[in-house]
């Protein structure tokens, strides 16, 4: 439970912090977690997940929308269709392929939502509480600072790529994960309609813009 939550935290945290750097394409060594961020953002992701005993990694793709006043949408498009809605009001939902909206009740997933809220609000201390940073060239490595986390995570590496950036999570059980983030865009406005248009699905947009006060 803890591990998943922290993985999510790191991935989302790094994504959010890294977007401006991905755009800037700066060559100079810098911490990919540092820098300004936009309040409204859009990106696409490709996730590779390795599982022990599975011959090749599981690949999924999707889109992400961030509104630092309302919350986040994490929409997986292939091979399954589902959308996660994390709002800052503390309400979170899962919308499946058939459009069924289910409130997220499981404690780990709720916590992911809460943590996401903290990161989006720029709680920088939060990341530093769990990790030490090592910045080398175009790469930022995060090393677990706490014993309990070290049991599960070896390193988390952020790399700039031509398309955007990559996040690699090396786990002690070798069930590693890689997320490539691309097509990052800062948005000027975001409402339910543009949300639907960006994600090409209405799933989650209504929840984000109604429940979060939009």
């Amino acid at each position, binding site marked *: 439970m803890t591990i*998943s939550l922290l993985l999510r935290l790191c991935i989302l945290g790094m994504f959010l912090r890294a977007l401006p750097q991905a755009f800037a394409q700066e060559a100079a060594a810098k911490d990919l977690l540092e820098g300004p961020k936009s309040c409204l953002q859009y990106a696409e992701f490709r996730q590779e997940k390795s*599982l022990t005993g599975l011959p090749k990694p599981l690949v999924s793709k999707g889109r992400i929308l961030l509104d630092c006043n309302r919350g986040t949408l994490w929409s997986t498009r292939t*091979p399954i269709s589902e959308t996660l809605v994390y709002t800052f009001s503390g309400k979170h939902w899962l919308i499946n*392929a058939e459009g069924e909206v289910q409130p997220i009740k499981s404690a780990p*997933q709720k916590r992911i939502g809460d943590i996401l809220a903290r990161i989006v609000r720029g709680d920088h201390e939060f990341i530093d509480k769990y990790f030490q940073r090592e910045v080398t060239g175009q790469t930022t490595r995060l090393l677990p600072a706490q*014993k*309990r986390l070290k049991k599960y995570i070896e390193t988390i590496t952020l790399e700039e790529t031509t398309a955007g950036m990559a996040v690699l999570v090396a786990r002690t059980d070798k*069930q590693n994960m890689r997320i490539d983030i691309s097509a990052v865009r800062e948005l000027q406005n975001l409402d339910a309609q543009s949300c639907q248009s960006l994600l090409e699905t209405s799933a989650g947009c209504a929840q984000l813009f109604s429940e979060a006060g939009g």
Partner: protein
Amino acid sequence: MPIALQDRARRRAIIAAFAVATLLLLIAAAQIFRTGLIIDTSLRSLAPDVSQDALSEALIEQLSAAASRKATVALAAESRADVEAASEYLRVQLAQLEDAGYNVKLTDPTETAAQYVRVLEEYPYNFLRPSLAEFLTSGDDKQLSRWVLEQLYGSAGQVRLTSFANDPFGTLNDYAVDLQTRLSGDQTDDIQSVMQDGTRRYFSAWQFDLPEDGLALNAQAQWIAQLQNIQADLHLKFSAVEWLQSGVIFFAADSASAAQRNINVISSIGIAGIVLIMLLIFRGVRPLPASVLSVLGGVLFAFCVCHSLWSSIHILTLLFGASLIGVAVDYSLHLYYFRFASPAGSENSKTHFYPALLLSLLTSIVGYSALAMSGLETLQQVAVFSIAGLSYACLLVLLFEPWAVKNLKVNDRALSTFVQSCVHCLRPVARAKYIAIGCAVIWATVLLCVPRFIFEDSPKAFVTQNPLLLDNERRLSQWLGEYEPATFILLHGANDAEVFAKIEQLLAAVSAAPEILRDAKKNLLGIHSLLSSPEQQRNNHILNGVFFDNQQLARDFIETHEILTAEQLTELRARYEQQKDKVLTPEQLLTRIPGFPRLWLEQVDSDHGKRVVTALLIPKNADMYGLRGLVNTIPAAEWISLVDETRSGLQHLRTTANVYLVFALLLICAIFIWRYGLRRGVILGVISATVIGGIALIYLVAQVPVTLFHGMAAFLVVGLGVDYLVFVAEMLEEESSLHFANALVLSGATSSLSFGLLSLSVLPAVSAFGATAMLGIIGNLIGAFCLMSVWQSFKEKQNDE
């Protein structure tokens, strides 16, 4: 025989007896080295009629020990940011403590969870969440295939505890995640909120596992000290954040600390007072070490003998036994006075003094031995302890005699005047018939008013009740909704299936009465919360078979998403078939995962076959009365309340001790009659009985709740009382001077300073003991003065005749 020869013979006898006793002591001490020191602190072992069978007893012992090793700290404030900041500070401080090697750690559920998943993976198809089991029965191929893909690619699989090799469809992972979520509840450094008095408060809860090794007490004391330092720092840095704590260790530490401070003051006053008296009366402290050493030697001897006989010693034996040995101080004082009065020792005085000493010892031994006849092991231990200790202490008094009385001087003119005045004042009323009438009136009143006595047998007498800690405990129990640490439900059965069926029966009964757990934050926690029944496991294995027969899933796996090849899927099916009929039993699970509460014990013996006992933990704030009623309707189900059992044990001990106190008085009276004849013997016995009756009457009138500790102190009162009476009776035979009575007053003063001052203790048990001892000492002195008048009257009559 000349006096010098008599003295030499007596001296040789004392040394020989000391040598034999010391040899015994060495043998007993060697035995302790061999077996190890075991001090039984369980109050439940006091009452045989409430104890369970050995299997249940072992289970309860493990559960209560585990509960007592839990401690919780919470940081609370109205501002979430304050709690977060304070929590971060606490986290860093605790990590430093852990790095510094302190043996008390934050509870780490992740380790236990990892072990648990590894065990479950050996039975990958045996566990299904109930709703999933239903879905597997009703869902079509397409739905099931989609569910599996969601486990692999979707958010459902983000929390992945199992490997693909062992759990290709994710059903076990689904079960494990659900179980973990239900069991782990509120995790450390997770900020929670609660409404209190109409205000929202935020808090973080920190749970600790305390060590269980032999050095636990020491380690815990150090840890508590460190935690208090952190608490003080936190208070300075985050004044808006409240520190709350819950757990037996905090009560024990607070009680010990309060009692320690209190006892330090009391004992300092007591020691200073005794030293002052010794300096005033004997013009030196030489007699003091001899008295103290004799008592300490007696306690040591008694401890070794009892430990060898029982292979352990109960804490109450130590407490009561050591107190009863305190009578030995009187022997020293009598000896000093006797030696001062007749330094060379006239033959006549010696023929009275040494028999008086032996008779005093004998009556005390007989009095204490009444406890041995109670049939209760704890009281038998107290009897053997006090008899062995008192005898050895008496021997040491005689052994130290030549050194202790060297250059002895006594300055007791004021004391003599006081004694003379007391005897004179009491003379008009100190008549045998008045004493008898007084005794009869007192005892008649006491016996008639027995129903009006207040008795208190709560184990709370052992600790001080800190209202702040009680408030912390109450609030945290509401906020966190943990489990009751000292109340359990036990279910018995002849096999696993029978016990699981009983659990189901109980759960069904609880579900049918929702008001029982309405205010509780959790459900009953039992083995069913950790493990499916054997029958359910077999059913789940069968249900998992639908995945292998699902053509849609096979296509998705092999063709659409290329997750597996057809051969790999066939291999998985073969492994699934091999798992058939394999069942994880509670015993196997709990043996392999020490982090889980030990809720299950089983035993196989040739007489009864297999016997199983399991425990269910009760969430706090449950309707205990209603739940108990339900438990009573389930066959082979038992409600266990350790507080009730301890109370019952203490009550049993109290009533038994009181009965045998009367028996002890009768035995002592018999010795008096044997020694002094019927009339005089009865008078001596009546005085002792009057003192005890008088104390009982005071408690009745003052409506003081009577506890076991009052009863045990009454034995000390009897021991001291008969000692006074014997010396009065013996010494007045030989001399008309009341000079020897100064020793009684001196003894009363030192006893008051050592025992009586305990009445000022903050610990209710110690205070009860001290108050009774104080009243008894006063009563015994008055009784002794009365006896002097009565005895002098007898002598005058004898002389007239």
